């Protein structure tokens, strides 16, 4: 079993289309255990019930945004060890710094390529294959 197959991934994005593209890119990289949520609140519920190893979350979302969700994940004892990659549609330095302060493991800019996504995940977990 490859490393990618072992990692449980939770993708959180308010846009159906983005969730589809994320899930597709992860599948292409060999990931098999992928769950999706539409916002931070829903994402947190899933994480509390079943912690995932890796969270890939959008920043701009209704209810709980990406940073709020990151904070919630980091302060909950059952979820705090998850790797967290935040997605951003706009290259915002302040946002990147804030995400780093709150304990994000990496940032991935949209629109991403498969290679960029792979590099962002490998920077956290090491080589996937």
């Amino acid at each position: 079993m490859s490393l990618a197959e072992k990692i449980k991934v939770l993708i959180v994005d308010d846009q159906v289309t983005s969730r589809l593209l994320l899930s597709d890119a992860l599948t292409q990289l060999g990931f098999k255990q992928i769950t999706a949520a539409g916002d931070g609140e829903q994402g947190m519920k899933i994480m509390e019930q079943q912690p995932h190893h890796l969270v890939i979350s959008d920043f701009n979302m209704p209810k709980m945004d990406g940073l709020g969700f990151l904070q919630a994940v980091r302060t909950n004892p059952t979820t705090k060890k998850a790797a967290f990659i935040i997605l951003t549609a706009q290259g915002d330095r302040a946002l990147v710094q804030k995400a780093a302060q709150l304990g994000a493991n990496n940032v991935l800019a949209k629109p991403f390529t498969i290679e960029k996504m792979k590099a962002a995940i490998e920077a956290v977990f090491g080589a996937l294959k």
Partner: protein
Amino acid sequence: MTIEATAKRVHIIQGEYKVVSDPDVVLSTILGSCVAACLRDPVAGVGGMNHFLLPGSVNSLASGGDATRYGVHLMELLINGLLKRGARRDRLEAKVFGGAKTISTFSNVGEQNAAFAMQFLKDEGIPVVSSSVGGEHGRKLEYWPISGRARQYPLTGAETQKTVALEQRPVPAVRPVENSIEFF
């Protein structure tokens, strides 16, 4: 003085998007094979437009691909811009224009771009209240984002060819932004 004369005109070019909440603003653009999605929230009084041409063949949304991700990104920027100005996703309505099939290229890039926009909006649950896509002529488009009024003028054959030639020049914005930072 007519409304048109007092209106503040903002022109949008390929790869751009604009969100406004000023009722005097009219957004305008010129479309060959390109597509413009016009979105607004009638309750919040905010609206906007983007203008894109996805390179090469745009696969179905489910199959991914760089062009598809770029298109989704452009739609997302417009939607995020609207939400920041107080729009709500469940109140958004769309109008879609452009995607002319042009003789010079013999390809159906315009058609694919229009289909992409329609599919994206359908998947996101944003109703398309009207659209004018395809055909052999380009369009000059005007959109009043607050009222949702849209007006289009067909381009002549020569104007369409000129517009398409301009559209097909490489656009620097097509590549993803290089701002991925690795913390460790």
